[in-house]
C-alpha cells in the first residue's frame, strides 16, 4: 500500500509514477510529484519506480482562478 495525497492506493510490483497517475486518473498536465519528499521530473515518470509504503505527493498547479 502507498499513500497518494493522503489517500491509500494499492501497491503492485513495478508500479511507476506513470502508473500512479493512471490509477488516480490524474490527467492535469501541470503537476509537481514527489516520492518520500524527493521530486520526480516529468521525463522520469515512466521509469521511476514507486516503492511499497511510499508517500507520494502529486501537487496540481491550477489554483486561484
Amino acid at each position, binding site marked *: 500500500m502507498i499513500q497518494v*495525497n*493522503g489517500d491509500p492506493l494499492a501497491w503492485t510490483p513495478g508500479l511507476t509514477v506513470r502508473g500512479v497517475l493512471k490509477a488516480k*486518473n*490524474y*490527467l*492535469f*498536465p*501541470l503537476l*509537481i510529484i514527489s516520492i518520500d519528499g524527493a*521530486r520526480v*521530473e516529468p521525463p522520469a515518470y515512466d521509469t521511476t519506480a514507486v516503492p511499497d509504503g511510499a508517500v507520494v*505527493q*502529486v*501537487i*496540481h*498547479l*491550477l*489554483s*486561484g*482562478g
Partner: protein
Amino acid sequence: MTLPEAGSAIPQCTVDFTQRTEYHQGLDAIKAAHKVLKEVSFIPSRPEKGYNGRSLHVDLSSLEVQEKPVTQQMKDLFIGGRGFGLWHLWNAVTPATRWNDPENEIIISPGPVAGITQYPGSGKSLVVSISPQTDIPIDSNVGGYFGPLLKFSGFDALELQGKAGQDVILFIDGQNGIIRVEAAPLEPVDSHVLAEILTRMYAVDEADRPNISVVCTGAAADHSLIGMLNFSWWDKRRGCVRLKQAGRGGIGTVFRDKRIRALVCRGPVVKADLNHPADFETLARTGIKLHKEIRTLDGSQCKMRRNGTAHIVEIMDAYDLLPTHNFQFGSHPDTHRIASDVWEARCSQATVDGCWYGCSLACAKGADGVVLRTGPYRGHTVTVDGPEYENAAGLGSNAGIFDPEWLLELNFYCDTYGICTITYGTLAAFVMECFQRGILNLERTGGLELVWGNAEADLEMMHQMARGEGFGVIAGQGVKKMKELFIANGWGDPKLIQDIGMECKGLEYSQYLSKESLAQQGGYALTNKGPQHDEAWVIFMDMVNKQLPTFEDKAEALYYFPLFRTWFGLNGFCKLPWNDIAPADNASTAEPAKIPEHVQNYLDLFSATTGIKIDKETMLVQSARVYNFQRVFNIRMGKGLRANDVPPYRSVGPVTREEYESRAERYDKQMVEDIGVDPAGKSLDEKIAITRTYRMDRYSKLCDAVYARRGWTADGVPTMARLRELGLDVLPEVVAIVRAHGG
C-alpha cells in the same frame, strides 16, 4: 466536417476561415438615418506612465459630456480598472439606487498597465455597474480592443449615466478628438451583425478597421436581466469582427435600459510605447521571457494556443468536477464528445487568435464555417468565438448536451443575443432539473420539452428570450427570480427549489462542482459580486492536493487568491498567462502554486509602466483596499453581510437521493471517519440529513475563519482597524457605514 471518435487521431480543421455570411449590405441606408444629437471636441492625449489623468463622463439624459480629473487619491487608493469603476459608481449612486435608475452607471476602465503589447494578456477592460440580478456592484473583465483604444484616445475610464430618449450610439474618435452622440434608428440589434456594420461604418478605410472597437449587446438584453456586453476587435486574418464578452451580472441589460445601441471607439494606430511607460526596456525584456516560455512549453503543458480554456473539459470530468445535470454530478460518459480534441479539430489552427496585440498565448479560438440550423440566422455561415471551457460545460454537460455542433449554435446565439453563457448554462440546467422533477411541465413552459440534452428546446427558449416571448422571458429573469416565482406559484417543494437553484447573491454559479471542496464552497459564496471563479479557484489545492487541511489553511487561501486576482482587474491583465503556463523550473520554487516568477513579472510590469516600485506585499495591499471597499459598497446597498454569503445546498453537499447514492461510498466513509456516526441501519434520507447538518456547520466555521483572516467581524463587516491599516479611513462615508454595522 467529421468529428473524431474518442481516442482517435485529431483531424486538422479544413474549413476556410475567411468564408462567412456578411452583413454590411445595408450600411449606407443605416448611416444616412443617423442624426447627430451632440458633438463635442476634446484634445486627444496619450497616457503618461499608464495614466491620462482624466476620465470621460457622458450623461445620456442631458447629453452633457464632461471630462473629470483622475486624482492622485484615486490612483493611490483604487489604481484603475475595477477600482476606478467602483469609485465612480460609489459617487454616482445612493443606497436606494437600483439598476434601472438613471443615476446607475456603467463604467469601463482598462487600468494603468492595460494596452502594453509586450506581455501576453495585457488588454483587459473592467466593466462595473449596479447589477439587475444582485442589486450590488458587479464587475466583469473582458478582452477586445475597446478599453485600450479608449485609453490611447485620452481617457482612463468612461462613465455612462442617465438614459437616452432614443437608441443612440456614442462615438469617441481618438484620432480627431470628437465625441458624438448619434441617434441610431435603423441599426440591427444583434452583436455579430451590428459590430461588423459599425466597424465598417466608422473606419475611414480598410486599414483603419483595427483601430475601431465596438461595444454592443443583442436582442435578449431588451427582455431579460442577464444581458451581456460584447467588446469587438477586427480580426485581420479572418477579415471579420470578433467578440469578447463582459458577461456576468446583466450589464448588457443596464446598457439597453439606457437606450445605448453601441459604443464605438476609434483609437490611434497601436504602437508598442503608447502607454509612455517609465521603463520600456523592462517591459520588453519581461515580455520576451514569457513569449519564449509559451513557445517552448505550451505544447507540453495546457495547449492554450490550440484549445484555449477548453483544454480542461476532460480534466474536470476526470476529477469529478464537470458540472453535469445542474451540478448534480461531476462527470458523464459522453464527455469525450465535447472534449478538447474535438474543439482542437473544430477550431481553425491556421491563424493566430489573440484578443489584444502581443498575446502569444492566443487562446481566443474560433470555430469557422458553422452553418446555423435555427433562429433568425438559420442557414447563415458564421464564426463562433470559443467555445471556452465555461461554455462547453455550462451550455453542454450541465444541460446534458454533448453534441458539439449544437453547443456551437448555443454559444453563437448567446453571444449575438447578448446573453452571458455562464448564466444561461446554469439557468437552463436549473430549468431542466425542474422539468425532470415535475416543478415545470409542458403546460408551464408553453410546450418546451426541456429535458436533459434537448438542445433544440434549449435553443428555442433562448430565441424566446431574444423575442421577449413565452417561457424564455421567465428564464431570462435568472435563477433567483425563477425560484421566487416557482415557489410563489406553488409549483414544487420550496426547500428543494431553493437547494437546487445554483445562485448566491442573485448571481448564477460558474461551471465547477464545489460539493467536495469546502474551500471552494467559500471560494464561490464568499465573493464580493457573487459566485464567479475569478476570485478563488482552490479546488485542486483543497480537494485533490489536500494542501488545505484546516479551516485556517482554507482561510489563508481565501485571503490570498482573491486579493491576487483582484490585482489583475485593477491593472488590465488577463489571468491566463499567470498560471495556464508555468516556467520550467517552477517546481523548485518555494510556493509553486503561486507561480512566483510570474508574480515577479507582474510586479516588474507595474513598476516599469507606472514608475512606482512595488513588492508582493504592496500588491496585496493595493488589492485589499479595493476588495474591502467593494465589501463596504455591498453593505451600503443593503447586502454584504454574513446572511448574504450563504450558498445553495447543492454547492455544499448532496441534495437528492440520486446524488447521495452516486457517491455513497464517499459520504458513508465521511460519516464514520469525520462525523462519528455509523451509517449502518440509517435510511437514505437520514444519512442525507446528517451529512447536511455536518457540512453546513463546517461552512459556518469556514466563514468564521475567513472573516477573521480578512479582518472582518463575525457578521462579515470590515473592521475599523482593517480600514485604518489600508488607509480607507480617509473616506468618511465608508467609515460611517462600517461603524453603523459594528465594524
